[in-house]
Structures are given as C-alpha cells and as structure tokens.
C-alpha cells in the first residue's frame, strides 16, 4: 500500500474527523473513554472517596452535628464491644455461608463439568444461570414462605412425623429461635440459597480447565479414581472454589435485607450502616462501618490472588 492511497482525504466534515481519528488512535481512545470515565471515575469513585473521607469526621454527641475536623475517634467507636460483636457475627455468617455453598456447589459443578454432555450440559448451565440473575427479593420472599412457623418446612417435618427434630434444632441456643424464620439458622439458609449460583459457575469454569491428560496420566500411574480426584482434580479446582467464595463472602458481608426479613433481632454490618446513616444520622460511623467490608474483602482478595483465584473468574 502506498502513502498516496492512505493520504487521500475523505470529503466532508465527518470524513475529516474520521481521518483524524484514524491518524491519532490516542485521540480516538480518549474520546471513547471520556464518557465512561467521567461517570465511573468522577461520579462513582468521587462518591466513594467522599464517603471514606466522612469516616474521618466525628459526630458531636450533644448536638448531633457532624464535626468536620479529621479524627480517628469514629474508628475508635467502631471498636466498642457492641460494634465488634456486629462485625464478628457478620464475618462468621459469611464464613459459614461460604463453606456451605462450596459443599453444595461442588457436586453440581463437578457433574456439569465432567459427566454432562450436549443438551444436559446446556440445561445445567441454564438452570444455574437462571437463578443467578433472577429476582433477588423474590428469592428471599420464597424463604419467608417456606420457613414461617405455619409454612412448608414445618409442614414437611410434621408430615414425616419428625416435628420433634425441628423443635430440637430450634431449641439449640444461639442458632435457634422461636421459628426458623426468626433464627440465625434461617438467615444462614437464605444466604446460602441466594448466593449458591455465584459459587457454582467459577468452580465449574475451573473444573472445565483441568486437562483430561492429567487425569489419564494419574490413572496410568496407578491412581484409583478416588486418589486421582483428591490429588489431581481437587487441587486444580481450588482456585475456582476461592473465586466463588469471593462472591459469597462479599455479598454476605454487605447484605442488610436478608437478616432484616429472616432472622433474629441482632444486627449485621449492613443493618448497622443503614441505621447509623438513616434514623441515627451518624454518617461518620456509618461510613466507618462500610470500611469494614472493604478492608475484609481487600485482605480476602489479596489472599485469593496468592492462590491464583483470579484466573478462574
């Protein structure tokens, strides 16, 4: 191609603009990026920074006015026993939900990645993706119906003649309560249900990438299927589990709706944020509370990166 062919200018203002953009790819890039960056970089990131800055303000306990001198006293308040209690409860719940989801998700992902073929595989994928996107609030509502004292789960236990077992479970201190829908056990079930698809998809993605030849080689070298699973497949699927756990952990940390609808009367981090920014009007403490999930997730992501989880996202 000769320079003369390229240099022939296109007619009209649009043509000249088109030529200019072609000659200056940097300009095109800047034009493409300007609107999304204005939105995400200025509006969104700006709001986040402003929020974090407010956690360094404090509230005057007598007047209820926000004092705009920089201080760490709000973070000090975060370390009060009642607030530490909220943080510990939320993190424990997130950990329990993550473990439960990994256990339920693994067989589904393993079946879909290893044994399902053709139409079955497509069906599996669809059946997992569907609840991932579908109405969050309706899913929570479904469990309110199921777990109510007069609801489906109680009816099933009674119909099977093991209503006593349910009562015994509910009588366990801490996780029990008057009914499933007002106990931590109920909160835990709903969390595990709602975030399950977020765990299945990354595990399946990592299992799909385990090379067949590795499994065959381990069989040739005398490993039984059980040993091959434990020493070859499981370690290679671990990044997928960690990737899924990022979602289940983060989503549980920040949720304030599920514990409000199904669960006991004590608070989770999300509810504490809601109360402090709303009725209490203590924006600095609310902001400090939102820093907790950000820091926990930062640590978590740092650990996950070291385990190679980001390749499985």
């Amino acid at each position, binding site marked *: 191609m000769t320079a003369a062919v390229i240099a022939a200018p296109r007619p009209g203002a*649009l*043509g000249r603009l*088109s*030529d200019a*953009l072609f000659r200056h790819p940097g300009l*095109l*890039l800047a034009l*493409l*990026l300007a*609107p999304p*960056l204005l939105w*995400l*970089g200025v509006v*969104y990131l700006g*709001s*986040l920074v*402003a929020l974090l800055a407010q956690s360094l303000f404090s509230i005057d306990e007598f007047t209820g006015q926000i004092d705009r001198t920089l201080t760490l006293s709000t973070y000090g308040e975060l370390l009060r026993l009642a607030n530490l209690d909220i943080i510990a409860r939320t993190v424990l719940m997130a950990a329990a939900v993550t473990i439960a989801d990994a256990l*339920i998700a693994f*067989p*589904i992902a*393993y*079946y*879909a990645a290893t*044994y399902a073929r053709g139409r079955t595989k497509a069906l599996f994928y669809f*059946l*997992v*993706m*569907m609840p991932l*996107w*579908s*109405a*969050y*609030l*309706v*899913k*929570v*509502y479904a*469990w*309110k119906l*199921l777990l*109510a004292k007069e609801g*489906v789960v109680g009816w099933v236990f009674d119909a099977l003649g093991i209503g006593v077992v349910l009562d015994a479970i509910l009588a366990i201190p801490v996780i029990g309560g008057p009914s499933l829908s007002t106990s931590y056990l109920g909160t835990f079930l709903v969390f595990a*249900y709602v975030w*399950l698809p*977020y765990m299945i*998809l*990354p595990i399946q*993605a990592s299992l799909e990438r385990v090379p067949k030849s590795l*499994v065959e080689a381990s069989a040739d070298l005398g490993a039984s299927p059980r040993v091959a699973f434990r020493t070859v497949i499981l370690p290679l699927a671990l990044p997928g589990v960690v990737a899924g756990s990022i979602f289940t952990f*983060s989503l549980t940390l*920040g*949720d304030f*709706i599920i514990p*409000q609808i199904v669960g006991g009367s004590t608070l989770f981090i999300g509810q504490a*944020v809601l109360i402090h920014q709303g009725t209490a009007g203590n*924006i600095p403490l609310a902001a400090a509370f*939102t820093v907790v*999930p*950000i820091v926990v*997730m930062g640590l978590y992501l740092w650990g996950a990166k070291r385990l190679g989880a980001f390749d499985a996202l």
Partner: protein
Amino acid sequence: MPSDRKAPLPLTIAAVGGLLFLHVPLGFVILYAFTTEERSYEFPPPGLTLKWFSAVWDRPDVWSALRLSLEVAALSTALALVLGTLCAAALSRRPFFGREAISLLVILPIALPGIVTGIALRSAFNLADIPFSVFTIVLGHATFCIVVVYNNAVARFRRLHGSLVEASMDLGADGFQTFRHVILPNIATALLAGGMLAFALSFDEVIVTTFTAGQQATLPIWMLNELIRPRQRPITNVIAVFVILVTFVPILAAYYLTRDEDPAHRTGH
C-alpha cells in the same frame, strides 16, 4: 476425565438435589399466589383462587411502582449500553497505560457490596444538594449496569477480527461507516444480551435503590416494605410471581443470544 462412563449415583443425587434446592422454592412462590389464605403463610393452602390477580389489577400504588421500575430500568439500560460499549471498545483494543486500572474501575460497583455503592452515592447527593428523584435512582442503577453490558460487549469485541475493520477501511468506508455497517452488526446480539441482563438486574434491584430513592417506590421497594411489615400478603404474592416472569424473559433471551460464547465471560456478576 471419565466422560464416557456414567456418573456415580451419589454424585448424581447430590447434583440433582442441589439443582432442586435452587429451583423448588420459587415454585412455592407461584403456588402461594393462588392461595385463599390472607393472614398467614399456611401450608398447604386451604383453597385456590384467581381473585388476587384482579385485586392487584385495581391497585394504583402497584401500577405507579411498576411504571417507575420500568422507567428506571429502561433509562439505566440505555445509559449502560452507551457507556459499557464505549468502555469495551476502548479496552478491547491494544494495551495502554492504565488499562488494568480502568477495567478494575468498571467491575468495582459489583465487586463492592451494594450497600457501599448505595451509601456512597447517597452521601454524595446530600453533599451536592441533589434532591432524590428518578434521576438519582437511574444514576445508581446505571453505575452497576455498565459492567453487565461491558462484560458481554468485551467478549464479542475480542472475537471480532481486526481484519474485518481493516478490509472495510481499505474499501473506502470511513470510521463511522465501518462502525455502522461492520462493527455494529457484529456486536448487536451481544449488546442486546447485555442490555437485557442489565434491564433484569435494574428491574429487581433493591439494595442501592434503598439509598438513592426518596419518596418514590419502585416495585422491589414496594415489595421490601411489605416483607418487613406484611399488610397485604396476597397482593405481595401476585407481585412476586409477576417479578419472576418479568425477569425470566430477558434472562432467557440473553441466554439464547450468547449461548455459543465462552460462558466464563458471563460469570462476572
């Protein structure tokens, strides 16, 4: 892997059981929309009726919540389509300084818990003295919808061969004609899929909306109020079924539009 063998029975049971666990609860929501019981969640329902569907039809508050939800979802999807496509077009080209940082920025609104996004936007609106309105709700929704469009579009841009664009330019098309006649037809289905997922996501979003809505109630906000203080259970049941249907259709459509692509690209929600 033993793909030619049948799966061990315990594995099959665990996998099918897991899938049932995912889907059976929603079936009960549909059943409850027909129950004659008004005051409790009694199971099994004492009787079945269709009257709640017509009762919902006569509710102006439900209609206005629905209208607001559709309005917000349409506006945020439109905004997200423009911004997400621009982002994908820019980031799928050759590497440049800061590309990684920008792709992280796009994902941030869904990587951080929704409550962080919500309260950050709310306090920013307060600081800037912006009154809560449809505009503020849309602003919040578009922020997390961008990534959905972006994910779908960037996967397609990567598959779009640079040679097609070069051929079009060699044949005399300018950049705009190339976009109109070559790039757009190639990315259209990915944009449609991303747009539909964004619509479904916005239509049932409640966490960010709690913070960015003033007095207006979207349909999920209406439902949330009912869930916290149940007053009209039968109406809520019918609305739940309606929300399932409204989100099901776009998700199904998006699935068919992109099913031949690598599923790994679409897990990023």
